[in-house]
């Protein structure tokens, strides 16, 4: 059935455009001076918010696919992941070029000394190899290692949410609510994976290494 109309492939440009909407909105607000008194902070917060949202959406694909049996969902996963990387890079660029500006070298001290910047930068750094190895050719070349490498996304999620939580003024129980929502969703998405991990761990202990590799691939 090679000539059947591929609805997923056809819908991808729309999903792509949808993922660009937050950026378009941000650019619009910037050009129309709708960013309020501290536009730089707004640019940082909004680009950061969308990075986390899309990252969590990416992490949501697999659990949702398994719950609903809508296996076609996984075909959007790469695009979502790459958009998370795109927004993370935008976020970092805004911080470096617009916020720090002439004081850009301050970023080294910040990465070294400020835990919230450290984890944020680490999250972005870990996304780089995932983005580079997201092509079909790379997936093929890396084989089983591809999956192992891309498990970094869980750590990226954790670092991303910590980055958000730790920049909130301590003692500010109101402001910490929003990052807590992201944390709750992240924990939920990770928790949904635990039964699968346990099952695979059990089977791999009882079966041959070759069998374990097959199991891992099936995940």
């Amino acid at each position, binding site marked *: 059935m090679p000539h059947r109309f591929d609805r997923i492939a056809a819908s991808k440009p729309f999903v792509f455009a949808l993922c660009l909407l937050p950026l378009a909105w941000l650019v619009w607000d910037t050009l129309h001076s709708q960013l*309020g008194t*501290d536009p*730089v902070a707004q640019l940082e917060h909004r680009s950061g918010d969308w990075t986390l949202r899309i990252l969590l959406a990416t992490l949501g694909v697999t659990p949702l696919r398994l719950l609903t049996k809508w296996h076609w969902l996984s075909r959007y996963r790469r695009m979502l992941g790459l958009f998370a990387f795109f927004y993370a890079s935008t976020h970092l660029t805004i911080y470096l070029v617009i*916020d720090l*500006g002439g004081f850009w070298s*301050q970023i080294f001290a910040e990465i070294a000394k*400020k835990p919230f910047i450290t984890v944020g930068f680490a999250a972005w750094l870990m996304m780089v190899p995932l983005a580079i190895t997201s092509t079909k050719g790379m997936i093929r070349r890396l084989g089983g290692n591809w999956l192992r490498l891309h498990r970094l996304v869980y750590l990226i999620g954790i670092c991303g949410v910590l980055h958000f939580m730790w920049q909130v003024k301590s*003692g500010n129980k109101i402001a910490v609510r929003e990052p807590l929502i992201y944390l709750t969703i992240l924990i939920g998405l990770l928790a949904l994976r635990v039964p699968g991990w346990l099952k695979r761990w059990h089977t791999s202990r009882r079966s041959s290494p070759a069998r374990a590799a097959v199991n891992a691939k099936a995940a």
Partner: protein
Amino acid sequence: MRKSADIPPSEITPETVYRGRRELLKGFALAAPALLVGCGRHSDADASASPASEPTPRPELKIARRGQFGTTEPQTSYQDATHYNNYYEFGTDKADPARNSGRFQPKPWMVEIAGHAEVTGKFALEDFLKPHPLEERIYRMRCVEAWSMVLPWVGIPLGDVLKRFKPTAAAKYVAFTTVERPSEMPGLAYGVLDWPYREGLRIDEAMHPLTLLTVGLYGRALPNQNGAPLRLVVPWKYGFKGIKSIVRIEFTDQQPRTAWNESAPREYGFYSNVNPAIDHPRWSQSTERRIAGSGFSLLGNRVATLPFNGYADQVATLYSGMDLRKYF
């Protein structure tokens, strides 16, 4: 009807007398009640761009002196200065104070003076301030969150006011308390800080000519979101030291407990002098983002933070011999 500038504190009207003649003082040019502000929530489109174009403009203040310790740096716009505030009693978002302070009644206002002084008691704000000519001071305001503004305050050197109460030798510190009115301050419903807000200064800091007991901004009485009707401005310290809506001033012999310091002692010291060399545990204090001018600009807003916020010549001697890393 200004009287001589040095009324002895004993002549300051106590509360009981004041209450009886409050009607007479109705016309006094401080802090008109925000009659029509009500619960109106203004969108950005109709937000006021100048103090005079407010729905209920604040009374203009009679300014006797201008320009002391001034700066020529561009001033923050009135719109920004009144719509980007940290005043958690009205909410923790920067836009909350402007949005949620409409019901706040800064008049009538009483200030209690307590502790180690010869003259103590409760005083009406009008009487409290009357002997003093008002000054305009254009100061840099550096927030601990690493942003800053340039603001034209109107007030009286705090020391001039405090001296009238004759603090005794036991008065080593001055403690300040913000009003606590849950019905007018929706933010108090949340335990963000241990209310009421409290701040404090060492007595020599309080008596320093830069320390301004402030009643106005941009030539008019303080808007509610900026700490009406009476607040502190200590330009060489981080902004949170500038306690708002003051109802109590106490001369103490012990270092007062202060709200932010209690909440996170490692992050907010009692002194909290602006110091680019000492970072906040979570962010750098070496530079700051200047929120100034009225034009929209994205680039080039970051400036280097100066020791004591640029007032080192005036205040550095207050701390000579002190380890500023320990007493941050």
